[in-house]
């Protein structure tokens, strides 16, 4: 049994210490907004925040997290950068199938929180770990810019 601090609540997870956070969130806690894409930190679909920093939850064992705060897509709208990113995503109609977008939004929200006005290079650096098979990248870039301006 591992206690995790998720979206402001403490949740007891009945799974082994080596269980990646992704599966604890999805399968044990039913927080299915965080997605499985590759399982090997290659695609970013599973991105969540650990103390505000983006991590790939598919490779982070729950036993390694301790009391650090986990934020998932379900709660990112409660943070100002998260809310701005979500709104920009809708305003520019970024999303196609949407499957990668939880991860994209988590990566973008973390970027904005730590760099309020990112340039192209900063966007590339923060977002290159997130694959979008539908190819929404052009709008992701524009939406991050828009969200930055709307601060």
């Amino acid at each position, binding site marked *: 049994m591992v206690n995790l601090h998720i979206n402001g609540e403490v949740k007891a997870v009945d799974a082994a210490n080596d269980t990646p956070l992704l599966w604890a969130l999805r399968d044990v806690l039913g927080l299915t907004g965080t997605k499985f894409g590759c399982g*090997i930190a290659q695609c970013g679909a599973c991105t969540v925040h650990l103390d505000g920093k983006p991590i790939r939850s598919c490779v982070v064992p729950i036993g390694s997290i301790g009391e650090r705060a986990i934020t998932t897509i379900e709660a990112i709208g409660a943070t100002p950068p998260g809310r701005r990113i979500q709104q920009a995503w809708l305003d520019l109609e970024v999303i196609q*199938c949407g*499957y990668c977008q939880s991860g994209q939004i988590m990566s973008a929200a973390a970027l904005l929180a730590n760099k309020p006005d990112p340039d192209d290079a900063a966007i590339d650096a923060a977002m290159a770990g*997130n694959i979008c*098979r539908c*190819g929404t990248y052009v709008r992701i870039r524009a939406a991050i810019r828009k969200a930055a301006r709307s601060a």
Partner: protein
Amino acid sequence: MTTSRRAFLQAGTAAGSAFLLGFHIPLAQAADAAARAPFAPNAFIRIDPQGAVTLIMPQAEMGQGVYTSIAMILAEELDVPWAQVSIEAAPPSDKLYGNPLFGIQVTGNSNSIRAFWPSLRKAGAGARALLTEAAARRWKVAAQTCHTEAGTVKHVPSGRSLAYAALVEDAGHLSPPKDPPLKNPADFKTIGKSLKRLDTPEKVNGKALYGIDAMPPGVKFATLALCPVFGGKVGQVDDSKAQQVPGVRQIVVLEDLVAVVGDHMWAAKQGLAALGITWDEGPNANVTSETVWQQLRAASEKSGAVAKTSGDADKALASGERLDAAYELPFLAHAPMEPLNCTVHVKSDSCEVWVGTQVQTRAQSAAAQVTGLPLDKVTLHNHLLGGGFGRRLEADMVATATRIAKHVDGPVKVVWSREEDIQHDVYRPVYRDVLAASVADGRVVGWTHRITGSAIIARWLPPAFQKGIDIDGVDSAVDIPYDIQNLRVEFQRDEPPAVPTGFWRGVGPNNNVFAIESFMDELAKKAGKDPVAFRRGMLGKNPRLLAALDLAAGKSGWGSPLPARTGRGVAAQGAFGSFIATVAEVEVDENGDVRVHRIVCAVDTGIVVNPDTVVAQLQGGLIFGLTAALFGEITIDKGRVQQSNFQNYRMLRINEVPKIEVHLIASGAAPGGIGETGTTAAPPAVGNAIYAATGIRLRRLPIDRVLLAGRKGA
């Protein structure tokens, strides 16, 4: 819009949501509804006595925005305010929701709007006519003296009006007219506007439910290993270690696969890794990419079934200057972001399936076949798709998951690892296109094109495979947009050894547009003409494509100087009923790496339902095509796929994406298809740009960086 969004959210967030779960109406509510029957004049429209308008979506939403576009067409002809509309996924039914072009319920071939355009308009207009008639009878006036406006019927001479809600009961007693008057497109209020999509608000906050998110109470989780060699079987399984893994509940061994069921995916994955499996690899264990290509190349030298002939191609080839070339495309995996999955609950007398599919009725039948249950005992919940791209035009994942679920007590969610997803795909076939043409006076006078590859249609829709010709395989070749007097197109069916093949975004045109547009560039050079001018000279009878070509050339600055090692390439296509010209600008560095800087696309796709969706599909489709051109290749060794995950099956990433400009051309023609067009456009445009930059012609994809590095600059 707010109301609509709220209605949609309401529908979508509830655990047993109407939106995601089709016609799932709780019993109490159903009894209530029967007492005050809604107005449901056809399978697509329901208006309840309170005036709530529900539109039923025959097609699957996989990111292409089809829920919104279909709702827009219905709302337009029904004449209801967009904000009052909510949507619901249709249950499986070929009869009610069959795609008019296929006869079965299927979302594919970029034809949702093309295929359903007449029937959806008629459905909306028919309902509107009934509501108008109901009001006219109530007022004892002629229906022709009434008109509709934003969900109300009005009679101007008497100043009377009635909301649709008030007419629901009366209209329900009238029989639908056969040919209801359709709106004049000049009067469209909804169609043609970039309305916000209905499915996206829940995709920004994690609430949208894909197949992989299905969580029926008590669900267990499974993952599987199929024999890595195509067609191989399970030999021995030592499960002693796997049984010790915490959370592992059950190990299911079938003829061709082993699945581990656990409390969560991690337990299942760990359990699978702990199994000692020996495979009986079977006869395909010595298949390699080499053997695949040898077979295909040999087949491509033989003449095939003639799919189209005009004039005398052989005679014309003997005149003018002749050029011969062959182009080759590799196997590709679909790799939708949502890995294959399917949740199934097999009970003694029924079965429930949760999945995201492009073929609802086939998915339902697959489960029925495996369980032996009648169709009406199989409930299918179709979810949002985390990408389809053709992979979910197959129902193999439903059959496989149901086979596993038959051995499991309670619901089980079967999730393919990314590795299994890539190594057990139904692949875009390898193709070889053998072309010959002669040019005289600056134009093509003779043309032969032989396409060799799988006949996917023969497996997927057998009645459509006639006389050895795969109608999809020759699409965009038999209807080549250029005016060529003497022409022959052949199809040579050749199924690769072992490797299963299927539809992949862009389908037949993917192959043909690449071969034809690459060859056109080579012929332009032979004729000593500029690639745009050369194409223009043969598009006199195709004004829509000509206009697109001129627009793309103009917007891209065609002909203006570029830095060293940089070039522009053009491609033109009439695929899927849309006329598109594309100019790519690329730079090739000394290592042979290709950087695509800019893509300019001009599009005439007829009447546009939602312009922003068309632009989005082109942006995304072009990027999908770039991934294929720059990286995409599945190779085979020892009967198995060598790629496994995104580290060796590369996708374009944000730092590699060019500027993309899409220019829509206004048109009153019937709507064309758009979802796959960008994917067919990008590879030839990029290949031609690489030639312009380096003088090196690539006749195979993906691009060969070694070859490009071999010659330092042009």
